[in-house]
């Protein structure tokens, strides 16, 4: 056994286990699919991860506070449509204004969720199940069955998905992917460094204790929903740019996808713990499995979903078991050092 295990933080362990699982999955598909380890495959997956990653990060922030946001799919659809509509009406808007508008819209919808959950004291699942339906209803009523079409959108929006920030060899770092990664990095830094952000964990970890410790739990939960809304709004804009054609079904199903990415990424569904790196890995894992299955010649179209479900299950199980094993190893090592007298005693000896 090695000494480093002892000093490793449990969250790091968790992420390591997940990364191992991801590596195994990639190795497996690499042996099954020709031309798997190519720049093209990287580009495919990186671009397809971009949208769901944004949503999943927002979802993670909410889940960490022991809540859930099932309305994200509807927020994505709503912002994608409204921003599209705005762009059709005013094609000359500055890109930053457009992005800001998308995020503001998402934030507003998130604020409604946040108000109801934090200050109205309605359980998040009830609120967001409700707004999942309500936001979609608003969109349908507003859109009146018109759809946004690529032809009416400004060129820069339509071309955004193929815009490349820089390339390493054939590996393109697309702008949309860079946006998602950038957001992930910012949120990661905030969650680990920003004092205020640590309150998300405190509230999710033990709401009663948070109240007693003088944390304004309402405001923290409200903020988490705001951020989730804002990120869903941003994702809505990327969605618009990517698909161009926006109908009332836009974003349908993102709520369950984001929850899946978050829990696979090791965020505790009962709040209190979770890392952005985990979310990135979880999102990637689900997406890699999905994208690989569609390219696996052996698998017929009708077998895909059954395999997807099973592979997610096995991946999470492997992660759970590996994590548990590493943790046990770590504890055992600590104890053997303890009885050998090489480790500092964990408690007072007098």
């Amino acid at each position: 056994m090695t000494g480093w295990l002892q000093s490793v933080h449990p969250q790091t362990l968790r992420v390591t286990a997940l990364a191992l699982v991801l590596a195994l999955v990639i190795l497996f598909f690499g042996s099954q699919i020709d031309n798997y380890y190519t720049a093209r495959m990287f580009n495919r997956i990186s671009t397809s991860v971009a949208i769901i990653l944004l949503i999943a990060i927002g979802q993670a922030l909410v889940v960490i506070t022991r809540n859930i946001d099932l309305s994200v799919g509807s927020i994505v659809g709503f912002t994608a449509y409204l921003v599209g509509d705005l762009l059709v009406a005013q094609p000359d808007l500055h890109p930053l204004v457009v992005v800001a508008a998308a995020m503001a819209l998402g934030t507003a919808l998130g604020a409604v969720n946040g108000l109801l959950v934090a200050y109205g004291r309605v359980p998040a699942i009830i609120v967001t199940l409700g707004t999942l339906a309500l936001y979609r209803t608003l969109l349908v009523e507003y859109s009146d069955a018109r759809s946004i079409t690529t032809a009416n959108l400004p060129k820069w929006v339509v071309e955004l998905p193929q815009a490349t920030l820089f390339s390493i060899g054939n590996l393109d770092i697309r702008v949309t992917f860079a946006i998602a990664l950038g957001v992930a990095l910012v949120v990661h830094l905030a969650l680990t460094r920003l004092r205020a952000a640590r309150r998300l964990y405190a509230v999710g970890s033990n709401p009663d204790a948070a109240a007693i410790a003088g944390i304004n739990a309402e405001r923290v939960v409200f903020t988490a929903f705001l951020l989730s809304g804002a990120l869903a709004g941003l994702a809505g804009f990327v969605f618009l740019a990517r698909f161009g054609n926006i109908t009332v079904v836009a974003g349908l199903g993102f709520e369950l996808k984001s929850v899946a990415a978050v829990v696979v990424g090791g965020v505790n569904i009962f709040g209190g713990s979770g890392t952005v790196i985990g979310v990135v890995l979880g999102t990637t894992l689900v997406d890699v499995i999905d994208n690989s299955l569609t390219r696996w010649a052996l698998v017929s179209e009708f077998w895909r979903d059954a395999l997807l479900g099973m592979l997610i299950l096995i991946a999470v199980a492997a992660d759970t078991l590996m994590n548990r094993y590493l943790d046990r190893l770590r504890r055992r090592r600590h104890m053997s050092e303890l009885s050998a007298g090489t480790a500092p005693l964990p408690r007072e000896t007098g």
Partner: protein
Amino acid sequence: MPEPVLAPPVLTLAGVAKSFALTAALADVSLELMPGEIHALVGENGAGKSTLIKIMTGVHQPDEGTIRLAGTAVTITDTQAAQRLGIAAIYQEPMVFPDLDVAENIFISHRDQGLLMDWRRLHEAASSQIARLGVTLDVRRAASGLTLAEQQTVEIARAISLDVKVLIMDEPTASLSAHEVARLMAIARTLKDQGVAVLYITHRLEEVFELADRVTVLRDGRHISTRPITEVTPDALVRDMVGRAVDHFVPKAAAGPHGELVLRVRGLAREGVFTGVGFDLHAGEVLCFSGLVGSRRTDIGLALFGIQPATTGTIELDGRAVLIESPEAAMRHGIAYVSEDRRKLGLAMALPITANISLASLRRLLGKLGLIDRRAELAMAEKHKERLNIRTHSVALEVGKLSGGNQQKVMLAKWLETEPRLLIFDEPTRGIDVGAKTEVHAIINDLAAQGVAIIVISSDLPEVMALADRVLVMREGRQMGIFAIEDATPEGIMSLATGERPADAA
């Protein structure tokens, strides 16, 4: 000896009243806290002590009455407001954040530490706070792995790390052993010297007399008396609390010949937790486990009850080796385990008293078709309400709404109802008042007299001395020795538990 205090009171409560739905928890209570005093607050379970301090910290709002801070009337809307006013509290039930590490738990309430986290400084500061308490605890550890006593330590560190004018401690020593209690008292005195007003709630009267300058007694939500400690005697205090005189400790029935050998444990160990535990236990015998906080006494209990089965060693019941791999198996063998952590492990807080009491013996209430006989269940609860003097207007009340001590009694009732042969009590009198403690001790003695084999894990040395036939001392997961009670002294037990004396001296 306390000087007469001349400074104006830092916190004044006048005419405070508070009721919950059907319970009047406080009625017309007044209290003055002086800077630089340690003020003890005592009273029976449910007397309203915790409610009173929750009013001071803004958790509850009073129905009537005023609060003045240094003379000015204040409304304490929430705990943040209380903190701003310089009032902090250590609550009766530890409230830690299981997912955060110890250091963050300690400093979570500090709001003046800048925008960014400085993890290194945080951990250093936390370490020194913990060290002040005379405990070694890895501040990087997640709080989820902490024992109850360690959680209590974290709570204390959190409160004393704040720069406060009033520090309230609601039974801080309930799960600490003498050693840690001494350190805590030293800290309380230091704070007092710095001019802090300390309000100290405890059921251990010896602490009151050792520490307090003044003592206030509450009974049934009413203020009974406030007197300098020099003017009261223990008996007078108890009379104030209970309204009548109470014998302190039921004298132990003369240790008669014990019955059959019930339990024989040899070489019991759980990898990485404890090792080398072995003892015999006869019917009608009380064996106490003593040791410092974290000496792994609880873990032995958990192993015997099948929660965390031992990895090596043998357990024999009535001369037959048994494998106990789950609580169900333990219960089939007639073993019961009363947990030290009633909140997390002992009671379903949102369920009524009845359901909690019947939980471990549901099987006996089931009629045909596996349906619960509700009348019998109610009778069962009423019986225990009488017997253990559980203070409640109805046994249909949610357990979570009872006072701490009464919750403890409900948990005892649950296990008594299973009529076990081997009963393991883990800190059985944690947080219960003198009267109730006497009752619990009487119950334990009764059970022993009826031939139940009993293990009591206790950090309360006087309790150990009062109850035990024999004492088993643990240190750092190792069994240091077993004494017959005749050979045991508190000093002897403590020095063995702290390692000041070599094990073989026992």
